[in-house]
């Protein structure tokens, strides 16, 4: 039931153990996002993630609380990186524990779809073609909007 913003790589195994603890619920779902080597046809060598720390913390804590209420989670965790990230490094990790798989999986999807458009992080990709801020994607906005219409 917490949020972490960190410069260092995410220890996925440790995060999973801490989330599940000694008393796992019936269903645990997690999602891990990694830096991709390609973005819209351009090669990516590394990524810089700028963030607005106070607002990011607030937005992600509210998001976890919303997911908890909406999907009856017994536990949740959101970890997001900032700073300089290399290829294939972890960017984000979310985890949800619920009584049933549907709620746990949906909670992870809801948290990811929402944080992509609502949490104040900005990606800047570095590659052979230079350095470029990543633009917002219409597909991300559509995925975000789904959760509004599905109530």
């Amino acid at each position, binding site marked *: 039931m917490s949020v972490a913003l960190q410069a260092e790589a995410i220890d996925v195994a440790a995060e999973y153990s801490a989330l599940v603890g000694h008393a796992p619920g019936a269903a645990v779902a997690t999602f891990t996002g990694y830096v991709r080597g390609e973005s819209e046809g351009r090669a990516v060598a590394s990524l810089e993630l*700028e963030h*607005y720390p106070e*607002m990011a913390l607030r937005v992600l804590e509210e998001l976890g609380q919303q997911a908890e209420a909406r999907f009856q989670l017994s536990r949740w965790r959101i970890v997001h990186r900032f700073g300089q990230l290399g290829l294939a490094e972890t960017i*984000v990790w979310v985890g949800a524990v619920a009584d049933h798989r549907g709620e746990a999986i949906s909670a992870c999807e809801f948290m*990811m779809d929402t944080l992509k458009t609502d949490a*104040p*992080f*900005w990606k*800047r990709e570095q590659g052979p073609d230079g350095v470029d801020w990543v633009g*917002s994607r219409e597909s991300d906005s559509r995925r975000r909007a789904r959760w509004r219409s599905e109530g």
Partner: protein
Amino acid sequence: MSVTIKLFSSLREALGVSEIEFDLGELDGAPLEADVAAIKAALSKRGADWQEALNQPNLVHALNHKVVYLEATVSEGDELAFFPPMTGG
């Protein structure tokens, strides 16, 4: 007392500054509070780079760490941030 203005991502880069203090006294009538639109309009007059940066499509404004519309009321001591659409995750 003034309003803290924060700029992120491409706005911060274009303007070469991440944070400034804005005195509401700079506005006509020196009001104690103003809406986001009035502050944005005043900042836009600081130069062609400010005009361009603050009038880009899809500009986001956050007041005290919450996304707001241009009509939101800003008071002394508040923190107002401007930035492009968010691209985390």
